[in-house]
């Protein structure tokens, strides 16, 4: 049985004390010799929550006792077969001092409560659904709930309770509302109903991960579960909505049907991330969420694929499984299941998922179980498709087009360069390539393949099934050379190269009806403008085109202001450097600023008009697509105006002073904090004082200062580490200050001092919280892709960490992999 950091007091086999000679005990666990085929094993151990800084197992979070067991920390609570393929019903009695622990929560339904002889309270919880130990959870302390009844489609009365300390009780409404919608959505979309009498969710202030789907007792990092207009931004609300729904959806995809082993992590995380994306899309965020997912894949997951920590969604081996809770497993995993849905069709996908849950309820299975169920329902072979889970790396597609005016035929040649597997497999991976055709004026044309009649023509998006290294598609019935939209909706997680011209991108950027393809075309224009500026030139044609496209967006609008904001925004600095690791960071920053100013100058009147038209945030506050989109569009305009006007920051200052919600405040403060505005320090001090009792809001204050491109930012970050509010023991503080600086401020991070700062923080954090330290360390791992002088400095920093004695396994794995390149 696995067991770590446990003090063993007694062990019994079938009620008889077990002599020491009958078992072996070491720091990793306990082995009983000659155990009978059927037996009862009882153990009695002590654990030490207050000394648990790794926040794995049972630990102290302020005045709360709280647990985190996934992936392998139940063994830090008791001796157990701590692996996901051992499922059992649990009955748990929690005994505690009634004053310290007036609330004691566990998995399942509460079934008994009594006073013990010595005056303590005892609460018994019963979870009838067999579950693996990683889903075990306990929360105890002085917390209070916001309640909401819910009746399932089967008529079960469920009490939804969202728990937090009393001071934050009023901030749970958004989470309660999200849970109610998520429960109804899973019934409507997948026919999956909640299965216990209570659903408890707890907001915990000290939490390394985002959240955890423990059966009937979800635990959230409080930044995701506490959202109201005064203390959370629009973005926080939507991140919280995504996270809360995601964990809830695990009740079926993960809990009722779980993973056989941790290699199958993508089964529960990839599929549940897809379900989360579908839910968010159905709440009205479809276009911007899809663009954000595409962005995340390209800027983070493709980078992971290209670096030393590259791994398949289902890797062949691991040293520390905590390092595999990655963008690859979650986001690429979701993209793969999304492709499966696209290839199978929505109806067959749903039928396959139904079979999967019916067939495997209460089991621990492998990824094949779901993929094969969908394959059967769709009548398609999934053998080649499974390669998506097995291979690390990003496939690339090269698409070229040739128009034959005489025949009215446009021939597309699609070549796939798949990544090879460990065993040298270089077979192509099957994927849907979604395309559309536009004429020069932007009108959609019918897509008709050779040998198809007029009736087969589809005007709009059509998927080409790519299964070979090279395929030719003859598109017929075309009286002019079409503009081809490729990879609409980011239909497959691939890199795409094509021979499309600037003129093609100009049409797509203005007119493509698919938000992702339109956004992607604008990004291509932006990239071309930036690359010219990096070379010391101005690409006038593309800059004029970009400005014209943005003018059109401002004047015409898409009807979705949130989407308009995305279409107008320049990429974040981190995205730019990730795409151009060989470039000089300062030159890249200057190119970005130059382009931003050029756009701001050229579109000043339209930007100001759009800003003014949307300056007033609707009251009362609502975190819904309409008002959120309005604020996003206004703030995008404000960011341009702040660099394009002599007194551009005056608008920001006014917005800060009249703000009625945190979104308005933060966007204004961020612009001023990153400037030389005379009110800068006063405003930051004002914000600090106003929110001194609110850690989650002060995290934003830390992050804003860490992201500022100013020369003195690193010095400022170091000063902030001495602020009494900051603590390395609090993961949210570390993420807000240290991680924001490292990930969102490439201009100031990429320096010898920046790397030294990161090394110092990793070494200080590693003994406290290895998962967090290893996560930070990954930001140096792509050193070999950077220009030589920068790469060498990054490598030297990694070597410095490598020399430190006593590194955790998690950090050691990242460091060794990084140096092995």
């Amino acid at each position, binding site marked *: 049985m*696995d067991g770590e950091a446990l003090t063993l007091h007694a062990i019994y086999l079938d009620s008889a004390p077990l002599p020491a000679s009958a078992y072996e005990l070491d720091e990793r666990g306990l*082995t*009983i010799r000659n155990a009978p085929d*059927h037996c009862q094993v009882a153990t009695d151990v002590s654990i030490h929550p207050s000394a648990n800084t790794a926040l794995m197992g049972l630990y102290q979070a302020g005045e709360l006792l709280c647990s985190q067991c996934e992936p*392998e920390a139940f063994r830090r609570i008791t001796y157990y077969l701590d692996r996901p393929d051992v499922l*059992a019903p649990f009955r748990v009695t929690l*005994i505690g001092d009634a004053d310290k*622990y007036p609330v004691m929560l566990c998995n399942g339904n509460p079934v008994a409560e009594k006073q013990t002889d010595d005056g303590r309270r005892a609460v018994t919880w019963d979870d009838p659904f067999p579950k693996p130990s990683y889903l075990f959870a306990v929360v105890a302390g002085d917390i209070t709930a916001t309640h909401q009844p819910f009746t399932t489609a089967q008529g079960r009365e469920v009490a939804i309770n969202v728990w937090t300390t009393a001071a934050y009780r009023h901030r749970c409404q958004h989470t309660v509302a999200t849970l109610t919608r998520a429960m109804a959505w899973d019934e409507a979309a997948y026919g999956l109903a909640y299965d216990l009498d209570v659903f408890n969710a707890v907001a915990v202030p000290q939490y390394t991960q985002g959240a955890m789907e423990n059966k009937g007792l979800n635990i959230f990092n409080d930044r995701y579960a506490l959202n109201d207009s005064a203390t959370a931004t629009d973005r926080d609300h939507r991140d919280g909505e995504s996270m809360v729904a995601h964990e809830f959806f695990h009740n079926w995809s993960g809990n009722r049907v779980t993973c056989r082993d941790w290699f199958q992590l993508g089964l529960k995380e990839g599929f549940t991330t897809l379900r989360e994306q579908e839910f968010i899309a159905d709440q009205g965020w479809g276009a911007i969420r899809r663009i954000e997912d595409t962005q995340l894949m390209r800027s983070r997951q493709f980078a992971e694929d290209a670096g030393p920590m590259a791994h398949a969604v289902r*890797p062949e081996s691991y040293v520390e499984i905590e390092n595999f809770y990655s963008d690859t497993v979650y986001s690429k995993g979701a993209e793969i299941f999304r492709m499966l849905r696209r290839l199978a069709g929505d109806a067959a996908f749903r039928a396959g998922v139904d079979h999967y849950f019916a067939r495997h309820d209460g089991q621990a299975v492998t990824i094949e179980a779901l993929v094969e169920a969908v394959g059967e329902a769709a009548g398609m072979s999934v053998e080649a498709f499974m390669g998506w889970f097995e291979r690390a790396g990003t496939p690339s597609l090269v698409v070229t087009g040739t128009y034959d005016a005489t025949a009215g035929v446009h021939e597309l040649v699609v070549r796939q360069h798949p990544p090879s597997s460990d065993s040298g497999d270089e077979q192509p991976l099957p994927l849907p390539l979604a395309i559309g055709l536009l004429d020069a004026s932007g009108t959609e044309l019918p897509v008709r393949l050779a040998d198809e009649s007029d009736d087969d023509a589809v005007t709009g998006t059509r998927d080409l099934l790519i299964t070979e290294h090279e395929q030719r598609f003859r598109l017929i019935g075309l009286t002019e050379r079409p503009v081809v939209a490729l990879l609409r909706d980011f239909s497959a997680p691939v890199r795409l190269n094509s021979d499309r011209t600037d003129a093609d991108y100009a049409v797509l950027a203005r007119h493509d009806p698919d938000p992702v393809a339109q956004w992607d075309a604008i990004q291509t224009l932006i990239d071309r403008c930036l690359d010219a500026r990096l070379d010391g030139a101005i690409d006038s044609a593309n800059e004029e085109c970009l400005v014209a496209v943005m003018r059109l967006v401002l004047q015409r609008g898409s009807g979705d202001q949130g989407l308009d904001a995305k279409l107008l925004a320049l990429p974040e600095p981190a995205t730019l450097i990730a795409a151009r690791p060989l470039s000089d960071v300062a030159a890249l920053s200057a190119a970005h600023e130059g382009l931003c100013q050029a756009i701001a100058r050229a579109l000043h009147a339209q930007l100001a008009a759009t800003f003014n038209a949307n300056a007033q945030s609707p009251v009362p506050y609502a975190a819904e697509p309409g008002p959120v989109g309005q604020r996003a569009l206004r703030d995008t305009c404000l960011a341009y105006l702040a660099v394009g006007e002599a007194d551009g920051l005056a608008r920001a200052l006014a917005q800060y002073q009249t703000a009625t919600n945190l979104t308005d405040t933060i966007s204004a403060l961020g612009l001023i904090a990153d400037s030389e505005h005379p009110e800068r320090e006063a405003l930051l001090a004002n914000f600090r004082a106003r929110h001194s009792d609110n850690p989650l809001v002060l995290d934003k204050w830390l992050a804003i200062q860490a992201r500022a491109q100013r020369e003195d930012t690193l010095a400022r970050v170091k000063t902030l580490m001495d602020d009494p509010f900051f603590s390395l023991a609090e993961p949210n503080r570390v993420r807000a200050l240290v991680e924001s600086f490292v990930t969102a401020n490439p201009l100031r991070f990429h320096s010898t001092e920046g790397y030294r700062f990161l090394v110092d923080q990793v070494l200080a954090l590693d003994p406290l919280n290895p998962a967090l330290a290893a996560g930070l360390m990954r930001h140096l791992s792509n050193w070999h892709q950077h220009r030589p002088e920068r790469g060498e400095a990054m490598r030297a920093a990694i070597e410095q960490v490598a020399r430190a004695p006593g590194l955790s396994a998690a950090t050691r794995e990242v460091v060794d992999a990084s140096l092995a390149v």
Partner: protein
Amino acid sequence: MTEPVRRHAYQPPAYLVDRVALTLELAMEATRVRSELILRRNPAATNPGDAPAVGWRGAHTTRHLS
């Protein structure tokens, strides 16, 4: 360096758990955990005859075989 865990080295658990009963006496400094597990040998285990190799070491099977 720690030995990696390998996917293809997966072995079904030697024992299954039919029922778990836990009692936790909660306290920050020292929480007492009493556990009663009803166990039965897994008929699907690869080597059910290997009596001493109970090896209930979860996902780390390979570490302990090596």
